[in-house]
Structures are given as structure tokens and as C-alpha cells.
């Protein structure tokens, strides 16, 4: 398969990107608004072409454990779900992190808590960036704002996951999952051979050849001194990721007097708000964190020296704002605007909220 330009939903783009990346296995369970990922994969029948395994599991719990299993074998494996389903996966995600295994998890967020709504939300920010499951661990969290990024982050997510032997998550929202846009799908690359996997992942479970000792993937360690050393090793990895993998995008920040911080689909709505604000003579800039973990603390801190205030806009009651406040260390006022329960504000509503929070900006 060559590079191809297509019009499709974000969810479909993830499925196509996975096949083209050479993913070995996808294990999923239906839940709105992300079922197109599983549906597209079943329709594409990649097991006939690339040999990719696609399985509709009996539950989200089974699916994430299948991912743990595939990752333990050194395979490129992934799952996807939406908020309530991702809550169910948290135990398995903790095991994958503790097992130092590479894997990709997609969360196309819907409104919660509880069964919530099928409409878009960004209310799983805390869950994704602060752990989610039990124990001290982090995921690399990528927040796409376009259908193109839905496709691109499959590649980026797997590349980072294998580079650091740690699970990565695409934290999308129902808008990016459901909307259709033009997307450039990358040329297909072949799945890795067993020899390549054995070389790249000498720790992988393959069946033990006579030439090596048994490989064991376990997250249990009853020797507390060893368990502390394991944790210290995880933390060292996280530290390196924090040093090397922060990603963000700036929009009109050069001359900005104020800053909006937003991620995912909300960042695109805010871009429009900023354009309208500038027509009224209010100079707002946008910073869009692409990696929610590691978070671009430094970039926001640097900009905070140049602006008078920050508005954090999220489809939640105020989650990322905590990281923004940590970044600016009390330097300047940081306010929040969010809609809840699946409601998405339009650009005018965001601008109105900005004007209410920063009445001096118009003067």
C-alpha cells in the first residue's frame, strides 16, 4: 500500500494507520463513540494481507489483558475504547506499565462520570496523565486535534512505546473520533519478523530457545528492596521521557497579551476564537499541548512571563488547568472555561468566557 489521501473519520484513520504501521494485533470491545475502529479493522480483514490479528474480545478487561500478552511477546499490539471502557482497562494498563511493555491504548473520550453520555468530553485528562490505575506509573499521552493526527499518532505512539518500553495512549475525544477530514495515510510497512522481534526485544516471550535462559514477564516482586529498585527504574525512564518527548504547538503567541491553553478538538475551536478576538483587537495566543504527559510545563512557563493572563479551555470541569497552574507557579491569573456532559462550546462562547474572565483585555 502506497501513501494515500482519503476522506474519513478519525476512528477509521486509526484503524487504517494501524494496518499500515504493521501492527501485529488489535483487541477491542464495542463502545460508542469509537466502535468504528474495530468495525473498520474487521471490514478491512488485515489478517488476509499483513497477517494482523483482530479480535473482538469478551470485555474491555479481556482486551487489555490480550494487549498485555501480545506486548509481552514483543508484538506491536493495541486496543481502543471510550471512557467507561478505559476505566475497566486501568488494571491491565498498570500491569503493562509495570511489565515495562510497549503498547498503544486509544481512548476516544465521552462524557462521564458513570455511564455518562456518548457525546464528546475531555474529562479523562486526570485518569490518563496522573496514572489511572494503581501504583506509580505514567503513560505517554498524545492528544490529537485532527484526523491526520489520529493517523500520525498511531506511528508516533508505537515508536515511543517501543523506544521507552512503556505504554502510550492516544487521548482523543468524541469529536476527533467522529468527524471526517482529509487524511494522508502513510505507505504501509511490513510487520516485523520473529527474528526482528527477537533482536529488538530480547526480553520477549517467544518460547525459549536452547541458547538463552527463560524469559519471564511478571509484575510481582515480594522482595521490597528489589521492588523499590524496580520502581526507581520506572521513574528513571519517566524522567528521560520528560526530558526528551515534550510536544506542543504554538499559535499566534509571538505578540500575544493573553494565552489560551487547550488540547485536542477544543484547541481548534479556540483557534477560531483567537482569530475573532484579534479582529476585535485582543491579542490572544494559543498553546496546544500535544503530549499531555509529559506536559509542556517549560513552554508555558516561558510564555507566562510575556502575557497577562491565561485561560484554560477544556471539555471538563477543570483538569489540565492544574498542570498549567503548576507551570506558571502563581505568576499570573489562570482561569478556566469548560462545558460538561458532552456539550461543546462554539468559538463565540469561548471568547465571551475569555472577556468575562479578563474584562481588562478589551481596554
Amino acid at each position: 500500500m502506497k501513501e494515500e489521501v482519503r476522506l474519513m473519520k478519525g476512528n477509521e484513520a486509526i484503524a487504517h494507520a494501524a494496518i499500515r504501521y504493521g501492527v501485529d494485533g488489535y483487541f477491542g470491545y464495542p463502545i460508542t463513540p469509537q466502535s468504528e475502529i474495530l468495525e473498520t479493522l474487521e471490514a478491512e480483514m488485515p489478517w488476509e494481507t499483513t497477517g494482523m490479528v483482530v479480535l473482538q474480545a469478551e470485555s474491555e478487561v479481556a482486551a487489555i489483558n490480550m494487549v498485555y500478552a501480545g506486548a509481552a511477546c514483543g508484538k506491536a499490539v493495541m486496543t481502543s475504547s471510550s471512557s467507561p471502557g478505559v476505566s475497566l482497562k486501568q488494571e491491565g494498563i498498570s500491569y503493562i506499565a509495570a511489565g515495562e511493555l510497549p503498547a498503544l491504548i486509544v481512548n476516544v473520550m465521552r462524557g462521564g462520570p458513570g455511564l455518562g453520555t456518548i457525546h464528546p468530553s475531555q474529562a479523562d485528562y486526570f485518569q490518563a496523565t496522573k496514572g489511572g490505575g494503581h501504583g506509580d506509573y505514567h503513560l505517554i499521552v498524545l492528544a490529537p486535534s485532527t484526523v491526520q493526527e489520529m493517523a500520525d499518532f498511531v506511528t508516533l505512539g508505537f515508536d515511543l512505546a517501543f523506544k521507552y518500553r512503556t505504554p502510550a495512549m492516544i487521548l482523543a475525544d468524541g469529536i476527533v473520533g467522529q468527524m471526517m477530514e482529509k487524511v494522508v495515510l502513510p505507505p504501509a510497512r511490513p510487520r516485523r519478523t520473529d527474528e526482528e522481534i527477537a533482536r529488538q526485544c530480547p526480553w520477549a516471550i517467544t518460547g525459549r530457545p536452547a541458547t538463552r535462559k527463560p524469559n519471564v514477564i511478571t509484575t510481582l516482586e515480594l522482595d521490597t528492596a528489589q521492588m523499590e529498585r524496580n520502581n526507581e527504574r520506572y521513574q528513571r525512564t519517566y524522567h528521560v521521557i520528560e526530558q526528551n518527548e515534550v510536544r506542543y504547538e504554538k499559535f499566534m503567541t509571538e505578540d500575544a497579551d493573553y494565552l489560551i491553553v487547550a488540547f485536542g478538538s477544543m484547541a481548534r475551536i479556540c483557534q477560531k476564537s483567537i482569530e475573532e478576538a484579534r479582529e476585535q483587537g485582543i491579542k490572544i495566543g494559543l498553546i496546544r499541548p500535544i503530549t499531555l504527559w509529559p506536559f509542556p510545563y517549560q513552554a508555558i512557563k516561558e510564555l507566562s512571563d510575556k502575557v497577562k493572563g491565561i485561560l484554560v479551555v477544556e471539555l471538563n470541569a477543570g483538569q489540565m488547568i492544574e498542570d498549567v497552574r503548576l507551570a506558571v507557579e502563581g505568576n499570573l491569573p489562570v482561569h478556566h472555561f469548560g462545558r460538561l456532559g458532552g456539550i461543546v462550546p462554539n468559538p463565540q462562547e469561548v471568547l465571551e468566557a475569555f472577556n468575562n474572565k479578563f474584562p481588562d483585555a478589551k481596554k
Partner: protein
Amino acid sequence: MTIEEIIKPENRVYAKPRLLNDNNMHYCPGCSHGVVHRLIAEIVEEMGIEDKTIGIAPVGCAVFAYNYVDIDWIEAAHGRAPAIATAVKRLNPSRMVFTYQGDGDLAAIGTCETIHAANRGENIVIIFINNGIYGMTGGQMAPTTLEGMKTSTTPYGRRIDLNGYPLNITSLVAQLDGTCYVTRQAVHTPAAVRKTKNAIKQAFQNSMDGKGTSLVEIVSTCSSGWKMTPVQANKWMEENMFAKYPLGDIKNTVKQ
């Protein structure tokens, strides 16, 4: 006759399997796990499939199975071993994949994964140690605990009105079209050990041949949990456990 003349392959009745390492087992005296571990090591060695065998360890007493048998292992979350075996086998179809699970792991928290893996006919083997109790956590009631049986959470004996009936999950699994071989064995006598060995061997062959799901239940003792000596436990198992969980093949669609 010198000792050299006696030590000949044809005279040898037992040797420690090469794949069973010298680590001290944490199992209690009289526990069935050690015997079953040895059988697995023996069979993998005899079949010459150690480079193709992948074991999935449970949560429970056998969580440390990977410390004793020198093959590749994945340690599963509680109850999830059949889901893990599913993915391992699908991603590595040439491998022999087995889970090793106790009654709490397989028949309580993992019932969903057990039923669905077997119903899909995954080409895996489930080795099911049924001693009617949670050993690792200190002897609590399991789904397979017999009526009247005392455990730390049924201190006056299991009551049907409070705790429901003992779950015969093996017979349940045998109903599923995806299973090819379902059998119930024990390891309390040399004869029983040999039968169990044959059962596990057939199950492993089924996995290699892609015949569907095989489940080998091994009715076992837990002398510590049952608060009996190993001898008492074996006798109690024969008199009580076998009545509810009778030994023998329940289903075999792969006739030798």
C-alpha cells in the same frame, strides 16, 4: 553387580526433569502443585517443545510457577490467563500455550475469560488445579468449595443458602463447542499421576495440532487450607471431593 551396571536407561524409573530447576518450592508439604509442575516439565521435555512452549501463570499459590519450570512465562492478572493465552496463541500460532490456574482464579474472577476462550475454541490448554479453597490468601471459600466445608470465610461450613452451590465449571466448559478435550484427574496416587500425565500430554498435543481448547482439571489437596495432614487430605479428597468432582474424561473429540 556394580552400581554402574544398575544405572542403565532401561532400569531408570525416575529422574528429575531437566526443565524443573533447583529453586526451593514455596508449596506446603502435601500440596499437589509440585507434582503437576514436575509433570509439565517432564512432558514438555519428552515432547521436545521447550522452544515452543509458553506458560501463563495465575494469581494464587501457583503465581510463582515461573520460578520452577524453565520455560518462557507470562504472569497474568487474577483470572485473566485465558485471555492472555488467547492473544499469545493467536499472535504465535506455532506455539504450545497453556494456562495454569487455581479454582479462585479460573472459576470466580476469571469465569468470563475461561468460558469465552473455551467457547472461541482457542487452541490453548487450561490446567485447572481444583482444591476447593483459596490457598495463597489464607484459606477462603472458593467457588468449588464443597457444601459444609470450613474455610476462613465460611468458618461454620459453606451454606448453600448463603454461599450458593459448588461450581462444577469443568462440566460447564465441556458443554462448549470450542472445547475438544475436557478431563478431570488427580495426582494423589502413582496411578493417578500417570493418568494425569497422559491427559496433559494429550492436551498439549491438541494445542500443537490446533484442535481447540483442552481443559485438564486436577482435583487437588490443600493440606494447609484444609487444616489436615497430607495423608488426611488425600483421604478426605477421595471421600468428599471425588463425589462432587468425579474423575475421568468428560469430553474427548480427538480420539487417539
